[in-house]
């Protein structure tokens, strides 16, 4: 069953020290859609302790509640039962109306850069809206971050439609990180990408994580991607979504491609692949629809 020891506070070379904020404690969270009607149990008695600065991946077939969990953490949806604390303060509770905010920023599956704003305006949007700093300083900080991540500062003035999907993704992650959120929520961000773009994105995400470390909750259906990126991989059962497995990934950081052929990696995958494909089969038998 799931070994729930929290992952050792590894501090490998090059990885920024653990931040003080971003500790998530999710206890006995449950979510039922349309309780008096079809009463669809999306998530049932889900508990997870995430240390500040941990990179946690949640893997599972469609209909395993991973997006529901994300919506609850982000504040787009309410809880039916259980509680979520962020650094000790209540974040979500059945009574507590959720409020999305810059402390938990989401990067969306189909991309949500505002097409009518330039890259720079997109990235500075959060800082300007929260009046955290004058516009000029926000722009300077944005250009800095853009330059550091594959010199995206050169396209700061263009509109998202002109960018490749990979570049749009990187800008969207920077738009989230610039707000210095406590938790970064990624909803299958690299799903529609081909192998090369996906690997490039993995490299950039790990680089950003190395430089300014945040708690990251990474939702994906791709087990290989989860094992390669995360410190911990949570495998979910198909509906109702429960925690089936909690795998500690103790591969050293920084992660390199060669590691994907290492014995340690193959052993981890062996352990997880059975759990994931079991759930995939069960989801498929029930005709589980992919929630668009």
């Amino acid at each position: 069953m799931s070994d729930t020891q929290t992952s050792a506070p590894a501090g490998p070379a090059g990885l920024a020290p653990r931040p003080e904020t971003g500790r998530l404690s999710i206890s006995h969270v449950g979510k039922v859609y349309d309780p008096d009607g079809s009463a669809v149990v999306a998530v049932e008695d889900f508990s997870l302790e995430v240390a500040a600065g941990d990179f946690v991946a949640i893997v599972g077939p469609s209909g395993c509640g991973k997006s529901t969990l994300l919506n609850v953490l982000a504040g787009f949806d309410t809880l039916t039962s259980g509680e979520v604390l962020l650094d000790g303060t209540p974040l979500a509770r059945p009574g507590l109306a959720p409020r999305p905010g810059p402390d938990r920023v989401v990067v969306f599956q189909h991309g949500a850069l505002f097409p009518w704003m330039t890259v720079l305006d997109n990235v500075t949007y959060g800082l300007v809206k929260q009046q955290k700093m004058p516009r000029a300083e926000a722009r300077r900080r944005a250009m800095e971050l853009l330059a550091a991540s594959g010199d995206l500062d050169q396209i700061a003035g263009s509109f998202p439609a002109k960018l490749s999907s990979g570049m749009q993704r990187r800008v969207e992650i920077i738009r989230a990180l610039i707000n210095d959120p406590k938790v970064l929520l990624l909803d299958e961000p690299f799903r529609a990408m081909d192998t090369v773009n996906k690997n490039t994105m993995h490299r950039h995400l790990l680089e950003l994580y190395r430089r300014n470390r945040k708690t990251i909750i990474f939702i994906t259906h791709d087990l290989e991607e989860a094992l390669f990126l995360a410190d911990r991989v949570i495998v979910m059962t198909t509906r109702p979504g429960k925690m089936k497995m909690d795998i500690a990934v103790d591969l050293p950081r920084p992660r390199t491609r060669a590691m994907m052929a290492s014995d340690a990696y193959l052993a981890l995958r062996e352990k997880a692949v059975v759990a994931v494909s079991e759930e995939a089969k069960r989801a498929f038998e029930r005709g589980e629809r992919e929630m668009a």
Partner: protein
Amino acid sequence: MENATVDPLVPARAAKRRSWKLPRLDWRGTAAVAGFFLAWQLAVILALPGFDEIPGPWEVLNTFVGEFLFSADYWASWAVSFQRVFLGFLIAQVIGIPLGLFFGINATLRSLVFPVFEMMRPIPPLAWVPLSILFWPTNESSIIFITFIGAFFIITINVFEGVRSIRPEHVWLARSLGAGTFRIFRKIMLPAVIPSIAVGMTLGIAVTWNVVIAAEMIASDSGLGRLTWEGYVSSTPTVVVVGMISIGIAGYLSTVIVDWIERKMMPWKAGR
């Protein structure tokens, strides 16, 4: 979707589409409509500026039931207007659809004729009334020409758009499978354009009703438009309101008829 089949082997994707169709009349909608009639009645009773000559909804209903519902002339003007609308509309389809198809397929014809067509399209249909009266022998035919103009430009441009937006793969695949040019035209291009024809017809019928009303007001002695205008001229405003409501219902009925035709033309869309 009517019966989006779940493939027993593979689960289908549940598209969560935001339906933007106007919602059924829930109570707030009915309240708004009731409010409208109430406000109208009040404005008449209080004789607010401009409303002094306007009849209230109740009065209109009485007059309608009393003088119009059973009068042959009233229904005759329905028949006249409908005949003008559908004749003009039909001729517009018969000429417009092939022309739109030719514009789409034949490049030389397109380069030759389309610019002239585009030059004439912005001219509002009713601007043709004088020339139409001058040209056509009878009053009736001149009005039918105007309703024809109303629908003609719209159906032609929509069919032309339809041909241009046919996916090349649909034609390539047919060619790979050995289909000849004529078979491709009949089995692939024509059906592919039907949805655009439907759009052109829906827009066209709305325009033809507008046009026939105005044409009847300007240059005819019969029809619902005439009835409404005479209500004004003989300063019997109730008749004007009855005329307007009748035109509204007639317009609505024609869109229902056109929708029915469209559903018949596109059985494959019924599932959508």
